């Protein structure tokens, strides 16, 4: 259940950005959560809605854009998203793949008033 720790980091981030922008409150928080980030989106949402109380995000809407694992093949050049966890090319089976997206958690956008 490290989702609570992650939400604490996220709320601090929102607060800092809101202060920088002289905003009174945050109305929308948009995140991107990778399939291989190690975070369960549903739990993250529950944690956010529990811990936002009394913070600048008290009335904020929380949006999670789920990002599938996205790989780029260094052999055939293909870029593709995978549903199952596999780190090789779906076309040529090469193991020389680079992770393009889907392993991290990002704060993407904030809407403030």
């Amino acid at each position, binding site marked *: *259940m*490290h989702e609570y*720790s*992650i939400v604490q*980091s*996220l709320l*601090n*981030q929102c607060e800092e*950005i809101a202060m920088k*922008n*002289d*905003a*009174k409150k945050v*109305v929308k928080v948009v*995140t991107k959560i990778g399939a*291989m*980030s*190690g*975070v369960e989106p549903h739990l993250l949402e529950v944690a956010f809605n529990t811990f936002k109380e009394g913070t600048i995000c008290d009335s904020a809407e929380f949006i999670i854009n789920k990002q599938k694992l996205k790989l780029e093949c260094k052999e055939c050049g293909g870029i593709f998203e995978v549903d199952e*966890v*596999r*780190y*090789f090319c779906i076309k040529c089976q090469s*193991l020389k793949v680079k992770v393009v997206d889907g*392993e*991290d*958690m*990002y*704060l*993407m*956008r*904030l*809407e*403030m*008033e």
Partner: protein
Amino acid sequence: MCVDCGCSIRGIEEHTGEHSHDGGKTFHSHEHQKAHEHLHHNPQLNDAKTVSVIQKILDKNDHEADHNREHLQEKGVLGINLMSSPGAGKTTLLEHLGDVANFKFGVIEGDLETERDADRLRAKGIHAQQIQTGTACHLDAFMVHKGLHHMPLDDIDVCFVENVGNLVCPASYDVGTHLNIVLVSVPEGEDKIAKYPVMFRQADLILITKTDLLPYFQYDIEAEKAEARKIKPNVDILEVNVNDVQSVKAVAQWIEFKLKMRA
């Protein structure tokens, strides 16, 4: 126009109460300053604002982790994060490494409660620093930073971070080590690697431990290795059984090799 932010508040031309903040390059009147504050701090004059951020949520942790890594680097110490479920044999491995390793090491121990693991290692003459995480299910870079202050970094070659026993949460946190070793023991049963891919994806070395118990369990060790390489094609894998000193020596040799590669 205001040279600081480009706003068009009048006042900069008036010379009442003129002063400079930067040695005479620009001048503000107090009237301008007042109007400025009114504009920027009056919420009614501020419209809804959308800011594109694109920042990692664990940005602060990652920054601290980089700091830890630099600190270890300066001291010429290799940092290794040990992760596994509870009871896979992290502390037992460290106890046995103490007997065979040609390098000196210290251990930062993460547990929810008790000093027991640190005490076990100290009994073996290994420098151990316990971090009690309370209810936290993982170590983060800030906790490890505190632990590093109690490590005799000038006297050791390797600093292990023995993470909280857990195959889920520690995988999301960079604690600032150079390498990750993930242990999985035979009695935990098959499919652990496939079920916890985020953790095994982080591994530079996977240790399949308690292999002396293989005759008593239905455990297809080759299938587990194949599963691991689906998740991380270039991962190193060793079989470990602490009753077989050669298998522990192999782990020590892997670490010695990595030490040489960073000289």
